[in-house]
């Protein structure tokens, strides 16, 4: 085969595509908020969050973990159960996910006859073996498709590949809202499963998980662990090699959704007598007007950190001279 033919074949196979991965921070290297937390939501590795519903006992830590036993990877995202849920009741649910911005998914052509299939691949390691459920959830039209994977060996990295069907019915809006959830389910009560949505269908609670028999043991067993890295969602029916990305590129992608500015004090400019502004421009335009936080200020009682914000500037207004704020963050997550 000529070099030109080899190149054409490579491009045709999809293995030569740049930016083929629809997910961000897939190697779990960026953790602006911190490396360990006992809270739910976005707390450690950027873009990934933990969510639960109606639990009674479960306590956990989520950590950005150093990886030494998976060639080519340095980090993972680990969930560790520190207090076990005694049993999974019908209404109880635990999952982790990343939401993908809708305008970045238009190439999937959902809602048309040209809709594309996508393949999810990831490395997973858990102290628990068994079958777990996953799903893609499309919020604009409230549609869902689910699948499953099986962990065969405890505490061993395994690569999983799941190809999801195309959705020729539901339309992902072309905007900066949520387009898809990519979800890994760690425990689900009977209200959340029983309906195998192997093709796209309308979401109805009982198809969040599929119809299989899924283990909840990560949540019901103290000291159990579940961790992932090398997560990739790409167009096509074949999982290609993981697309490693340089740290700066990944960080910039993450900063569209969350920015932890450099630690320290930021001094403002006097606007008029007794009025100051501290303006900070995010490294990249953010997805939406962010919610900002700060740890200290010249005059905390009169600091306004909402009224003047935009996606391209965070602004702290204070009714004082020589104002400052400390350790700001800006959150425009989905």
């Amino acid at each position, binding site marked *: 085969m000529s070099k030109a033919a080899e190149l054409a074949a490579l491009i045709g196979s999809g293995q030569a595509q740049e930016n083929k991965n629809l997910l961000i921070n897939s190697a779990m290297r960026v953790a602006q908020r911190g490396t360990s937390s006992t809270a739910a939501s976005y707390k450690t590795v950027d873009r990934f969050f933990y969510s639960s519903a109606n639990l009674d006992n479960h306590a956990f830590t989520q950590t950005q973990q150093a990886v030494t036993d998976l060639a080519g990877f340095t980090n993972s995202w680990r969930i560790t159960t520190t207090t076990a849920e005694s049993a999974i009741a019908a209404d109880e649910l635990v999952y982790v996910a990343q939401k993908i911005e809708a305008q970045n998914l238009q190439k999937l052509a959902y809602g048309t006859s040209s809709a594309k299939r996508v393949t999810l691949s990831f490395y997973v390691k858990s102290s628990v073996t068994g079958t777990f459920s996953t799903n893609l959830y499309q919020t604009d039209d409230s549609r869902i498709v689910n699948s499953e994977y099986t962990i065969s060996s405890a505490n061993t990295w395994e690569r999983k590949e799941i190809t999801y069907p195309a959705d020729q019915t539901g339309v992902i809006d072309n905007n900066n809202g949520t387009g898809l959830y990519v979800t890994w389910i760690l425990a689900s009560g009977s209200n959340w499963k029983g309906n195998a949505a192997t093709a796209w269908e309308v979401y109805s609670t009982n198809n969040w998980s599929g119809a299989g028999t899924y283990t909840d043991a990560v949540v019901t067993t103290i000291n159990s662990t579940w961790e992932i890295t090398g997560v990739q969602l790409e167009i096509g029916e074949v999982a290609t090699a993981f697309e490693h990305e340089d740290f700066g590129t990944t960080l910039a992608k993450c900063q569209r959704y969350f920015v932890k500015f450099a630690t320290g004090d930021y001094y403002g400019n006097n606007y008029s007598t007794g009025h100051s502004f501290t303006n900070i421009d995010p490294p990249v335009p953010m997805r939406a*007007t*962010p919610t900002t936080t700060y740890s200290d200020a010249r005059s905390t009682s009169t600091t*306004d950190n*909402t*009224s003047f914000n935009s996606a391209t500037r965070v602004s702290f207004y204070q009714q004082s001279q020589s104002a400052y704020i400390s350790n700001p963050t800006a*959150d425009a*997550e*989905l």
Partner: protein
Amino acid sequence: MVISSAKYITHPLASPPRNGGVKATFDGVELNVPLDPANRHYAEILRQVDAGELTIADAD
């Protein structure tokens, strides 16, 4: 997200006066939220208001 309270914040310089954000407590953490429907915190406030689960108090 559990929102235990929500109250409008007056824009500090606007004339005539108008709201500039919402001070709300999310899962025990107080946040000042901009009035952008694409902001996830404000979107959740609006969802809970529409569902009848939350009322935003007027600004002082």
